[in-house]
C-alpha cells in the first residue's frame, strides 16, 4: 500500500482520532496501532501527541491516567460532548468532500460547462 502523504493526512487526522474515540476510550499507543490497522500508515507519536494536546485544549477530549495490568500507566482519552459535536460536524464535511472526490474520479473531466 502506498504511503499517504503527510500533507493529505494533516487535514483529516484530527477527525480520524475523534472518530476512533467515538467508538470507545483509547490510549496513545493503542491509537497509533488502530490508525495503522485502519490503513492510515505508520503515523509517528510525534504527530499524534500534539493533536491529542490540541483536542484536550479545545475541550473535545479528556485524558485520565490509570494503571495498566500489562505494562506502564496509561492515559486513556475519551470524547466530551464538545468532541461528539465535532465528530458529527467532521462526518458531514467528510461525506461532502468524499462525494465530491468520488464524482470527480467517476466522471473525470466529463462534466458539462454550460
Amino acid at each position, binding site marked *: 500500500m502506498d504511503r499517504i502523504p503527510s500533507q493529505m493526512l494533516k487535514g483529516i487526522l484530527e477527525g480520524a482520532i475523534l472518530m476512533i474515540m467515538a467508538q470507545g476510550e483509547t490510549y496513545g499507543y493503542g491509537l497509533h496501532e488502530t490508525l495503522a490497522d485502519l490503513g492510515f500508515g505508520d503515523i*509517528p507519536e*510525534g504527530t499524534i501527541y500534539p493533536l491529542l494536546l490540541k483536542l484536550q485544549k479545545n475541550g473535545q477530549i479528556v485524558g485520565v491516567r490509570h494503571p495498566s495490568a500489562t505494562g506502564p500507566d496509561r492515559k486513556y482519552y475519551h470524547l466530551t460532548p464538545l468532541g461528539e459535536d465535532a465528530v458529527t460536524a467532521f462526518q458531514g464535511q467528510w461525506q461532502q468532500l468524499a462525494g465530491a472526490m468520488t464524482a470527480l474520479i467517476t466522471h473525470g473531466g466529463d462534466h458539462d460547462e454550460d
Partner: protein
Amino acid sequence: MKTKLQQDNDARLAQLHGIDHLYAEELVSYLRSHTGRDYVALENSIGDILDDLADATAHGHSAKEYFGQDAQGAANTILQTIPRAGIGQLLTLWLPIMVYLLAIYVFPPFLQRAPRVGLGTLAVIAVITLLLVVAIPRMTALDEKKQNRAALFFILSPVIVGLLAGFAQHWADTQLTVPLTWPATDIVLLAVALLTGATAVWLRPLWVLPLPPAGLGVCAALYSWGLNAGPWQRTLAQLGLYWTVMALLGLGILFWFIWVMMHRDQYRIDLSESGR
C-alpha cells in the same frame, strides 16, 4: 532539588533502556530546557510521552521509530501546544539572575562615598541579560548540526559576552556622559527594593523569592545613606567595616540565589497552580 513530578518522570525514563533511553533522555532534556512553558503542563506531557514510549518499546518498537525521525520538529509542535508560563514562573529564573547581576555590577560602584556611576554599568546589565534570554533556550538541540552550533556558541559565549559588555560599558560611559551621583544612586537602590517589594506582595505567600532582595536593597540603600549623609559617615567608611558590609551583602545574595535555584521547580509548581 527534584519535584515529585520530575521524580515520577525520571522513574518512567528509567524504564527505557539502551538507545531508547538515550533518545527519550534527549527528548526530555530538550522539552525541559524550554522554561517559558508552564511547568506542570510540560511535566505532564513528558509523563504522557514517556508512558507511550514505554508501551511502544514493550511491543517491540524502537523509541525513534515510534516517536518519529524528526524528534525536534515534533517536540517544537508539542511545545507550541503547551501553555506559556505565567509571569510568576518566569520570575523564578529572571529575578535571581537580575538581582545577581545587580549585586555584581551595581553594589560595588553604588556603595561608596560620593559615588559617580557611568551609565555603562546599566548598559552592561542590559546586554548580559539580553544575551542570557537569547542564549539559554538555545543551549539544547536534538539534531547533531544544531547541537554542534549550540556547543560552539556555548564555548564562544564568554568571549562574546566579554566583548559586548566591554563595548557597551566603553560606549555608554563615553557617550552617555551623565553619571549617577548620590542621592540618585540611593534612589536607584530604593527603587530596586520597592520593585521587588511590590513583587513580593503580588507573589505572596511565596516570600522567599522576592522578599530577600527587597530587604537587601533596603539595607544597601541605608548603608549608602549612612556613607554619604548620616552622622556616622567616617565610621561606616572605614575600610574594614566597608568590606565586611560588602561581603555580607554578597554572601546574602549568593546564598539566596543558590537556595532559589535549588527550589525553583517547586516554586514553579506552586505558581502554576495559582495561575501565576
